[in-house]
């Protein structure tokens, strides 16, 4: 078991330092790159926070959909094969809902500001 502060808490302190103390001292180009970097660190934070739960949910959905058990990557590969072979398509019960939910779970980490994502959450 690792000690405190937690990785998330340390990440937050590092981000706060970069944002509050480093960013204001940078020139235009470096400022742009630091903003991108801060965005990347926020993505890492969301990954740590959200994916244990969303990966587990995705796995359950895939196992139900495919009637197989396995690792997430293997299940996704199997689903790809079935779609490629024509064995699964949007008329397959639950497939469209699963893919929509998975896309939302990915965007929750990658880009929660994406307009189509925000709209989907409102619905």
């Amino acid at each position: 078991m690792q000690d405190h502060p937690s990785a998330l808490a340390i990440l937050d302190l590092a981000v706060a330092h970069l944002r509050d103390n480093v960013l204001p001292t940078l020139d235009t180009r470096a400022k742009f790159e630091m903003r991108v970097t801060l965005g990347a660190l926020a993505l890492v934070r969301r990954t740590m926070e959200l994916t244990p739960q969303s990966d587990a949910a995705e796995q359950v959905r895939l196992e139900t959909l495919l009637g197989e058990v396995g690792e997430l990557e293997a299940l996704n590969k199997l689903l790809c094969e079935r779609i490629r072979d024509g064995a699964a398509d949007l008329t397959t019960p639950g497939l469209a809902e699963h893919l929509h939910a998975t896309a939302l779970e990915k965007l929750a980490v990658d880009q929660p500001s994406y307009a189509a994502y925000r709209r989907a959450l409102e619905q």
Partner: protein
Amino acid sequence: MSAAPPDPEALKRLAPKLAPGGGDILDVRPLSGGASQDLWLIEFTHGERAVLRRAPEGGAGRSDLAIPIELEAALIKAAGESGVPSPRVLHVLEPADGLGAGFFMQHVTGEALGQRIVKDDAFAAVRPRLARQCGEIIARIHALAPPPGLPVKDARVTLDALERQYRIENWPRPVFELAFRWLRAHAPPLSQPTVIHGDFRNGNLLIGENGVRAVLDWELAHAGDPMEDLGWICVNSWRFGVPDKPVGGFGEREELYAGYEAISGKPVDRARARYWEVLGTLRWGVICTLSAVALREGLVSGIERAMIARRASETELDLINLLRDA
């Protein structure tokens, strides 16, 4: 990553062609919309300005699908002569110039950043006119005679190329698989190969207070289905957070189509334009995955590339929405 600056001595030798008004080179600085491009602004003491656009050495960073840069220059020139807002091409580089491959063009001022174009007050007055203007401009591009050497690409050729690139990632994307299947099943035949800009979208247009001042980035031009350009500009990723304005985040599809029909005299095949919007969404998604592959292979580095790679998921949501409605 930025490209090496052009050799100052070689630039000096070309100065009379670039700034007929005379004067010495005052400043050379990179000009970039964010991505790593070999693009330079050259300022002369008498106030004239030229832009140098070069093909990256060894082809790194230039798409496999890109046309030779000399052909790009020829198209910009032809487009300018046919009423497409374009920078004047000042000089196409030759080996003896000692600056690599590329061309010089006149510097055109304007805003290219999509975010600002869809949101800044400065463009509030012009925004309602842009979609129709884009339709008119695309129609003028489509009226150009295809220059020799312009590759012909229909939906199938484009899908084959995209699928090869997608397979390289070797990462399961069920939504992309569905999209490939749907797009192959509905691929339209190519009746009359037309000059297609290939990357006509918000972000590649220089906008001023009266509208489009220049159409940029012709490297993906090809001969293909005219509806391709009308679909690509509507891809959600180019709406910059304004999803209810399907044309570039600034206008309506019917405005775009009306502009196109007025200039071309030909009806827009709306279903086919929507087909190309689906294909375009997949295309942007695959382009995002290329960044992930390039990082994995150590061909590029940089946090910006990583963040582009992580934009593939936006196209997965858009594709599933589009395919459910199709």
